[in-house]
């Protein structure tokens, strides 16, 4: 008997039989090339199929030429996509896993930047993100929309998909029609729910007639738009009931929020509790007879299994979990769930790259987004590799090198692995960040890396040892800003988090990084009773938290904890007291703050002493991560991996 009897049990969904309940649900990847699915798409989905996913649903395929909200969207309406579809479906079917295509028209949640055509929506109400007034659809255009879904369904059938899912949830024309917030029509498509849902049912009928009975049709609904005047759970359940009553739909998928208004609740970061959106499938499941998918921060098989056992959903969408580890299901099934490279919900390289029009990656899986790039064959001659430094860069280098057959020793001067990661994760709301090095440390043990803690490597020792290759991952050290002088109560974030300083009273956090460093320490100190203000030269405190969808929760928490925020200021001097003079650079005026402590979240200095001592040695010396230039964790992982592959 499996440890996950509910999660790993098969389920019939319309004409399909799924081997388990884990769905790799639809999500953007930016892998499309000039409107067509790429080889990377096929390799990406195939990796998750090989890893045992029960069902794969691709990212959205646009159903009409008026829908082009971002550059790398698959133009499903163009028959030229069919060979790319076939490449995906063949690659996935090779592993015996069914795959559906998601069809969508983003409606008013778009701009004309790429299409050079008016945006289509039920009513001329501008989207909160794109802010372009759409053209209210005329009746003949509604027919075009329905025809577009049918056309793309035909392409999907020709391309070998096992069915399609209609995106009617967080970014879609159909949701736009369903929602009283965006549909103020007075014709047969506006007003009462039956009218607002009319487009959905016309599409369902048209698509089902294309699919026939052998292929599956799903509908993804938004359970709560989280916007003023929008759809809430009661109406979502009513729509689900109507969908079920058509007897033409095989399952219902769910989501929460509106992508262009409340994205931070759709792809929630670690600031939002796991399972936060399960009230939606729970409510819908009670009202319908077809299977229901629940989503939202499912990180491990236990949690997913319990949700199914509790009747919250029939299937669980595990997206980021399988982005981080394609073998999520295989490892769960084989009894090695502890080996799953669990997702952090950090959103840095997956969600964070999507809004920036970059390919989807993963902070802890350097192969995500690069599945189609074949790695060179592992070496035949095992080398003796010495890795110095046990942060994410060194750990990743060690793990990859050992996986590729090398004999690896890792020296870490501290008494624990992880480098700066355990420090960053010591703030309660950032605890899940620890998984990156916890996963890596477990992997290092698994693949036989010889880890020596409390071992500070010296150049002489390494030279004497003369390994076949050295990878330096010695990290970074705090750098004192020029204005700090020798004031003892001006300290670095790391001084606080590593316990060397315990600020009390009034604290000014000076943030030049715009990421979690400043906001984390601000929260921590406010929780300890300090009166905290965060000052930044930027226009916004924690600017890059916007990319990871943490800016909203930061602002809410900052307000609740009484943390003040000060923007557009540059420190000019600090005197005993401590009185800090800041220049407000837009106006050139000076202002002062008198505080008990100043905590600096500023750029660090690369610890490259060993590099300087060893470069030019007879044996190859590589350096990776912060000791090259102090940056974020993804750079450390990518560089560690790359250096090890290149050995």
């Amino acid at each position, binding site marked *: 008997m499996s440890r996950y009897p509910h999660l790993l049990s098969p389920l019939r969904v319309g004409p399909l039989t799924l081997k388990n309940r884990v769905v790799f649900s639809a999500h953007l990847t930016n892998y499309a090339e000039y409107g067509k699915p790429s080889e990377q798409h096929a390799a990406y989905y195939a990796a998750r199929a090989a890893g045992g996913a029960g069902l794969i649903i691709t990212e959205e395929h646009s159903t009409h030429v008026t829908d082009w909200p971002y550059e790398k969207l698959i133009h499903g309406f163009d028959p030229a996509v069919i060979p790319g579809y076939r490449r995906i479906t063949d690659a996935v079917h090779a592993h015996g896993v069914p795959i559906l295509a998601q069809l969508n028209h983003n409606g008013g949640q778009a701009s*004309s930047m*790429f299409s050079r055509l008016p*945006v289509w929506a039920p009513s001329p109400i*501008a989207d909160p993100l794109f802010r372009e007034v*759409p*053209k209210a659809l005329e009746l003949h255009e509604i027919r075009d929309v329905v025809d577009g879904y049918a056309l793309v369904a035909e392409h999907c059938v020709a391309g070998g998909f096992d069915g399609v899912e209609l995106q009617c949830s967080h970014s879609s024309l159909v949701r736009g029609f369903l929602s009283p917030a965006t549909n103020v029509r007075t014709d047969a498509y506006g007003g009462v729910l039956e009218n607002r849902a009319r487009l959905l049912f016309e599409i369902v009928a048209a698509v089902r007639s294309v699919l026939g009975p052998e292929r599956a049709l799903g509908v993804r609904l938004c359970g709560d738009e989280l916007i003023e005047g929008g759809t809430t759970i009661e109406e979502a359940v009513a729509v689900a009931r109507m969908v079920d009553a058509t007897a033409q739909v095989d399952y219902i998928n769910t989501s929460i929020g509106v992508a262009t208004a409340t994205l931070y609740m759709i792809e929630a970061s670690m600031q939002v509790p796991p399972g936060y959106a399960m009230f939606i499938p729970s409510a819908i499941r009670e009202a319908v007879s077809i299977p229901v998918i629940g989503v939202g921060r499912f990180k491990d098989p236990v949690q997913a299994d319990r949700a199914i056992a509790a009747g919250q959903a029939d299937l669980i969408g595990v997206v980021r979990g399988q982005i981080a580890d394609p073998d999520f299901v295989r490892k769960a099934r084989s009894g090695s769930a502890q080996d799953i490279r669990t997702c952090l919900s950090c959103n840095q390289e997956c969600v964070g790259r999507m809004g920036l*029009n970059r390919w989807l990656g993963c902070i802890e899986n350097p192969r995500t987004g690069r599945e189609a790039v074949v790695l060179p064959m592992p070496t035949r001659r095992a080398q003796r590799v010495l890795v110095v430094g046990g942060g994410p860069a060194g750990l990743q280098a060690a793990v990859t090198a050992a996986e590729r057959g090398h004999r690896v020793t890792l020296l870490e001067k501290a008494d624990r692995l992880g480098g700066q990661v355990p420090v960053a994760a010591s703030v309660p709301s950032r605890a899940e960040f620890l998984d990156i090095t916890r996963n890596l440390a477990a992997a290092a043990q698994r693949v036989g890396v010889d880890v020596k803690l409390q071992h500070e490597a010296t150049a002489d020792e390494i030279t004497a040892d003369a390994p076949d290759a050295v990878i330096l991952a010695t990290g970074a050290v705090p750098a004192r800003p020029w204005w700090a002088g020798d004031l003892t109560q001006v300290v670095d974030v790391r001084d606080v988090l590593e316990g060397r300083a315990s600020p009390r009273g009034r604290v000014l956090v000076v943030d030049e990084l715009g990421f979690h460093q400043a906001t984390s320490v601000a929260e921590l100190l406010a929780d300890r009773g300090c009166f905290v203000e965060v000052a930044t030269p930027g226009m916004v405190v924690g600017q890059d938290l916007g990319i990871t969808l943490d800016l909203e929760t930061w602002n809410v928490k900052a*307000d609740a904890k009484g943390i003040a925020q000060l923007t557009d200021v540059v420190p000019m001097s600090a005197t005993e007291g401590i009185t800090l003079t800041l220049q407000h650079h837009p106006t050139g005026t000076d202002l002062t703050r008198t505080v008990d402590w100043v905590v600096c979240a500023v750029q660090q200095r690369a610890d490259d002493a060993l590099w300087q001592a060893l470069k030019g040695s007879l044996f190859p010396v590589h350096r990776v991560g912060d000791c090259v230039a102090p*940056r974020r964790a993804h*750079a450390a992982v990518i560089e560690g991996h790359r250096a090890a592959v290149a050995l």
Partner: protein
Amino acid sequence: MLTESFTIGSRTAPSRALFGPHETNLGSGRALSDRHVAYYRERAAGGCGVLVVETASVHDSDWPYERAPLAADCGPGWTAIVEACSPALVLASLGHTGGQGSSAYSQQPLWAPSAVADAVSRELPMVMEDTEIAVLTAGFGTAARLAMASGCAGVEIEAGDRSVLRQFLSGITNQRADDYGTDKARLLREVIAAARAAVGDGLVALRLSCDELAPWAGITPEHALELVPTLDVDLLTVVRAGPYAGSAYRPDAHVPEGFNKALCASVKAVARCPVVLQGSVVSEAFASSALAEGGCDLVEMTRAQIAEPALLQKLRTGAAPRPCVLCNQGCRVRDARNPIVSCIGEPRSGHELSDALPVDGGSGEVLVVGGGPAGLECARVLALQGFSVEIREAAEILGGAVLDAALGAGRERLRALVAWLAAECDRLGVKVVLGHEVLAAELSSYSGRVVLATGASARDTGWVDARDALRGVLQDGPVLVHDPVGGPVGVSVAEKLAADGREVRIVTQDPIVGTLLSLTGDLADCNTRLQQLGVPRELKSLLRRASGGTAVLEDVWTGAQRTVPAAVVVDCGPRLPREELYETGMLRAGDCVAPRTILEAVLEGRRVALELGA
């Protein structure tokens, strides 16, 4: 003088107008594409003298934006551009953006002289060691050889807006203790020498920041005057740009035309080669007088030639070129979304391979209802195609919503676009009836074809419409500008009212004002101007209601409410299409389809005209 030929070293440019290097996002992968070729071909055919192709990275450690050309991939593209662009001199721009680049595409550390993070990206670069410096210098040489083998007249070395060479020249970014730090120009000289060795009798041009606008440590004009005479180059484009200079390199219309003129003249006085004046030069009048005054030898008119590909040809024949209005709305495409370079007045720019040109052969009468940008462009293109066209406009003047937008602070130049459209319509014989509000009954009795371009109207908010506020129709008392859009309108209304001496504040749901202005480069600048004007920015706030001299604002995150003084609320929100005359199947364009920007109005006005002519 502008239209006359000019000899640079061994080569002769057919005019003194230069088309400078700029991001287009027309690339295919990191190569130059057919779209590039078509884009440059039109400017060369229009009489451009020196055409500098989009900057190519000399080494794959530099990948500053997704479609940034890579020199190693540019050979065939340079060849095709050279073949398409005779007799213009084609220079290959070669660069490396160093610490101002992006690691997002290369996933490698950025290269820079010192460990100084870029002010915008905040990403810390790696310090270049001798190995990287040698690779970089060799990269310039290799790229220059390829450019020459591809038929280019020479190369332009990028040491201006985003450049590792400028970063080496500047005390802000170069804090090295080695020879490259004590002699900050050393790398530039080595790179010039490498290029010189590679180009043979070809040209080595340089685009040089002569003012970083950061005098405490950056490159100053004084530094530049010392440096320039020591440089072995054939052509020098004088620019201002630096790590804290933001939009200064190619600002929008908030900065006057030709802002570098004095700087350029002072550099020319010491230069050993011809000098190019860069910086928002868009009019023939300014360019010609700058040349006549002798402070420059050529004039960069990049945006003027994006707006009017046939700029020099038109000036030669006495025709009026379509004006660039320095809005930066369509042509400034340094944006992660990879928008295609284009122009609000000439939307075919960047789309030369897909957008048709007007063809003669139209006949019959067409009535265009509405004389804003959509109606004017439609009428102009219809008339070009041989139609007999009449515009009926409700107002007493042509121009539509643009006239009001142009009342906003810093937006005065917009008027030039509709004035040009109106003059072209006049020249082409379009009949114009002003002060005539067309009614449905009138249309039903009209026998010819009809195009609606009736624009938009204000939402029914109960507040003062932005257009009325711009016209000066505003009661006394404190003003609250409500800007849920974050485009140019709200900011320009607030600035104008503040400049008029009104007490103004601006409210937005966003954490900063003018979020959509990231595309035009005015985002940081507009927030700075508002703060300098003393306009309080009510950020992260929703306007809930206003009455009795106060408005109630609500924090978007916490829901906490507060009141601010507001005798008047000016609404700068989205507008509604005017559809009174519309019946299914009628032709229409611009805001009456969906209220958007001038770009869409002109694009759709033209599209409808071409559709009728097809």
